[in-house]
């Protein structure tokens, strides 16, 4: 069961998932210039992880990223977002765009917008890790074969 899909699907996934991941990071990085942003980029990056889990099966995918790694990156993204918010106190208050007060950069270039770029990256990490971890946890239940009776007997309580 956990061997995954046919070799055609596996080879295609091997080729494509890298491109999907890079595309997701690109959409998140240029969120302040063109449409997209951290949320769309995070979901696209999670889609690359979902592709790997679907094509190769859960046990092979766990050699690449484990659930505990996903939890770690998820919390790290959220924590970094809070750190950026707290650093705004240097310029006046909570969540103030302190980099824009120092140097705004040119509108339309990559390094503009101040903390918007950093926040987009934090949101990217957070959303991607959260969704990849959730899908990994959901894929532990792929088979249907467990009946209700088995679980009742094991748990010790009657249905």
């Amino acid at each position, binding site marked *: 069961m956990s061997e995954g899909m046919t070799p055609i699907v596996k080879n295609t996934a091997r080729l494509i998932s890298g491109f999907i991941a890079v595309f997701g990071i690109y959409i998140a990085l240029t969120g302040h210039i063109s449409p997209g*942003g951290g949320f769309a980029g995070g979901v696209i990056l999670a889609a690359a992880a979902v592709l790997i889990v679907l094509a190769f099966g859960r046990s092979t995918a766990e050699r690449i990223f484990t659930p505990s790694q996903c939890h770690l990156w998820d919390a790290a993204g959220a924590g970094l977002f809070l750190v950026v918010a707290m650093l705004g106190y240097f310029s006046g208050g*909570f969540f103030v765009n302190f980099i824009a007060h120092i140097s705004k950069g040119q*509108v339309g270039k990559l390094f503009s917008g101040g903390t918007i770029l950093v926040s987009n990256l934090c949101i990217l990490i957070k959303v991607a890790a959260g969704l990849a971890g959730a899908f990994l946890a959901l894929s532990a239940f792929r088979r249907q074969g467990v009946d209700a009776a088995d679980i009742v007997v094991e748990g010790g309580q009657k249905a």
Partner: protein
Amino acid sequence: MGMEYLVLMLLGVMLAAVLIAVETDDLLSSVIAIGAAGFALSVIFLLLGAPDLAITQVVVEAISLVLLIRLIVTRRDTTGETETPRDALRTALVMLAGGVLICGAYFALAGGQGKGTIPPFGQPVLAHKAGDAVPPGVAADYLARSAEQTGAANVVMAVILDYRAYDTLGEATIIFVAILGAYAVLRRLGRRRDTRESDQ
């Protein structure tokens, strides 16, 4: 002028897809129909001038479809639905409340004397000038000054990550809690299954 007709047509497609998803007996068809509704919605977002939303809606819809198909594809529950008389009463009451909602919405849109509280389609609060009866919203300020105040060209990103960043913090918390809830629901059973698999 043509834009409204396109949006109306796509809304009709979306409504038809939702009705099919709700009424059909086959679960796989139901899930695919709701996926079609989601993709129609993303095209509607594109036509209404919201490209960020269109991108996000497309990828979110793809992942939702994968999740839903994961749920139903190996779980064959072929028996039909059972129905009790109390269900019919509950359904009737909720549909009555829904009808009251529609009437209230109609009055909000068209108004008692032809003046509704929701602005007509195509003239948002943003479009009022400073001397009107309705004061212009703060969005005109954001549009005019986001480039010089934040340096970002995408005003929507500037709104959610600079002007209204606190709301984004709340939203990140909600996603965190939802994913945590999914882990908590799945956790115990997963461990039991793993020990059973390692026993065999």
